[in-house]
C-alpha cells in the first residue's frame, strides 16, 4: 500500500509538471503581430493637354519668309497615359479639311511641324490620314513641343483660310 502511494504521488507530480508546461506556453506571445491587406488598382487611362487652341499664320512676304511660323509659337503637348506596358501609346493629329477660304484652297500638306521631346516626331499634315505625332511603349507622363510651319507662296489667292486639327491620344 505504501509503495503504491509513492508510485501514485510520483506519477501525479509528473502529470502536474506536464500540465504546467503545456499551459505556460499559451499564456503570452512575443512577438505578437496583426496585419491589414492593402490593394491598389491601376486602370487604363489617358489624358491629353495642348497648350494652344488656335494656330495663326499671318500674311508674309514669301521671299523673306518662305515658311511661316505660327504666331503662338511652339505648341506644348503633355500626354499622360497608363497601359499594360506592352501596347503602344499613340498621339496622332489630323486635319478636318484643307485650309479653305470660300472657294480657294491651300493644300493641307503645306502645313508641317517639327517636334522636340522624347517620343515626339515631325510630320506633314493630312486630311485623309491621322499622322503620328508621338508614340511611347509604357505608362508615363510625356511632354514635348510641336512647331508648325505653313509653306508660303506667291500663288496663294488673297483670303482668310481656316481648318481644324484634331489630336487623339490613345492606348488599347
Amino acid at each position, binding site marked *: 500500500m505504501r509503495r503504491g502511494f509513492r508510485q501514485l504521488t510520483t506519477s501525479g*507530480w509528473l502529470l502536474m509538471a506536464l500540465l504546467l508546461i503545456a499551459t*505556460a506556453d499559451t*499564456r503570452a506571445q512575443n512577438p*505578437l503581430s496583426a*496585419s491589414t491587406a*492593402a490593394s491598389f*488598382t491601376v486602370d*487604363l487611362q489617358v489624358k491629353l493637354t495642348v497648350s494652344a487652341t488656335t494656330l495663326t499664320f499671318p500674311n508674309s512676304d514669301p521671299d523673306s519668309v518662305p515658311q511661316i511660323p505660327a504666331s503662338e509659337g511652339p505648341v506644348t503637348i503633355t500626354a499622360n497615359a497608363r497601359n499594360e506596358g506592352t501596347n503602344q501609346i499613340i498621339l496622332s493629329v489630323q486635319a478636318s479639311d484643307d485650309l479653305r477660304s470660300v472657294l480657294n484652297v491651300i493644300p493641307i500638306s503645306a502645313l508641317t511641324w517639327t517636334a522636340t521631346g522624347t517620343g515626339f516626331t515631325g510630320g506633314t499634315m493630312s486630311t485623309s490620314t491621322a499622322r503620328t505625332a508621338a508614340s511611347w511603349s*509604357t505608362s508615363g507622363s510625356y511632354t514635348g513641343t510641336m512647331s508648325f510651319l505653313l509653306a508660303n507662296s506667291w500663288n496663294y489667292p488673297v483670303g482668310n483660310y481656316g481648318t481644324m486639327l484634331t489630336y487623339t491620344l490613345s492606348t488599347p
Partner: protein
Amino acid sequence: MKLATIALAAFLVVLASSQDARAQSFTLTVTPSSFAFPSGDPDTMPEVQSPMVTVSYKVTGAGKTAWHMAIRATSDLTSVSDTIPVANIRWTATAPLASGIALTTSDQTILSRTGNMTQSTSTVIFYLKNLWTYKVGTYNTTIVFTLSSP
C-alpha cells in the same frame, strides 16, 4: 524517491518560467483586415489616401521590461508582373504611434515604452504616391504591426 525529486524539480522550473510569461502580455488588433487605395487622376490626386486603420493594443505585466511596436510591409505592392515600391507609401498615425515617410519590408519602430500600457487605440492613414508611370493592374501587399520585447 529519486523519480519524485526529478519531478518536483521539473515542476519548480516550469512554475518559475510560467510566472515570467504571465508577467508580460501583449494584446494587438488591426482593423479593417483589408483596404483598397482609391484610384484617381495623378494630376489632381498626387497621393491617394487609405481609409482609417485602427490599431488597438495593450501591454500588461511588463514590470520594468522595455517593449516596442514596429510596422513593415511583407513586400512591394505587386501585380502579376509589375511592382510599385512600398517606399511610395507613407503614413500618419495618432499619438503615441509615430508617423513615417516611407514604408519598408523591414521593421520600423513606431512606439517604444517600458512598463505596462493600458488598452489604447491609435489610427493610421496610409498615403500612396499616385504616378502616371504605374502600369495597369491590381497591386497587393500586407502591412504588419508587431509588438515585441527583447
